[in-house]
């Protein structure tokens, strides 16, 4: 799967949880999920579970701890698919 496809899917999964629509409109690989998109930390659990379902992968908490940006998500998922 191409990184661009993964990014597109990542943004699609994140979208319902985003509280800053302006930040979402200019989302990039550098966009911080908690600080820029204002995704609530409890909802981040749901996001990670949705990633697992969408890409048929398992993501450990230790991996989640390394994820801050959309680009981090894309890199992590790329390593696992």
């Amino acid at each position: 799967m191409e990184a661009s496809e993964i990014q597109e899917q990542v943004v699609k999964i994140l979208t319902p949880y985003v509280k800053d629509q302006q930040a979402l409109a200019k989302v990039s690989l550098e966009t911080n999920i908690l600080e820029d998109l204002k995704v609530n930390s409890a909802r981040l659990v749901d996001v990670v579970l949705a990633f697992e379902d969408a890409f048929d992968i398992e993501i450990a908490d230790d991996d989640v701890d390394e994820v801050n940006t959309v680009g981090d998500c894309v890199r992590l998922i790329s390593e696992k698919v």
Partner: protein
Amino acid sequence: MIGNDLVDLGDPELAPERRHPRFDRRVFSRREREVLGASGAPDRLRWIFWAAKEAAYKVARKIDPRTVFSPSRFEVDVDATLKGCVHHGGDRFELRVDEAGGRIHALASEMTLHEADLLWRVAPFEGDAQTASKAVRALARRELAAALDLPVEELEIDRVDRIPVPATCHGELDVDLSLSHHGGFIAFACDLREGASAWRQNHGVEGP
């Protein structure tokens, strides 16, 4: 060290139908899931557990920046008075939960929590997610400045490795602070124990 966390129970995002079916298995230990299963108010208890885990994580990370937020590894034990503890590995964090007005506020510390040493506030907040961070800092500055008898304009809250650090023009204030916001509420908690006393002594300021 102190950590706090806040949950606005009125946030529509917390509705059970919005939660992923594997959320509980991912976040809670087997024992916590059993307690939730036996509870008459599992949704309320679920978010008490969550706030407690987040608050304890904030303390753990101050002690060891390598700490990973793996929610199920922060195991919460809380009694009917909403006091208890959070266990993480071999560490134990004292826990105090305050529930009022549709929100839950958790305080955790690796030491015994004494009311006289604590400064904490929860306030309603009407802005959006973009301005909550600024609002909680303003609340903490105002209350901390009053407690330490400092002009509020001299007090800043810096951020070092995602940890809020109060400072004045004289340098960092050795006061331990934790900030949180969620939905319609903002909250801060401050441990005034040693740091503030030392600062007051150094600067000839009388305590509150």
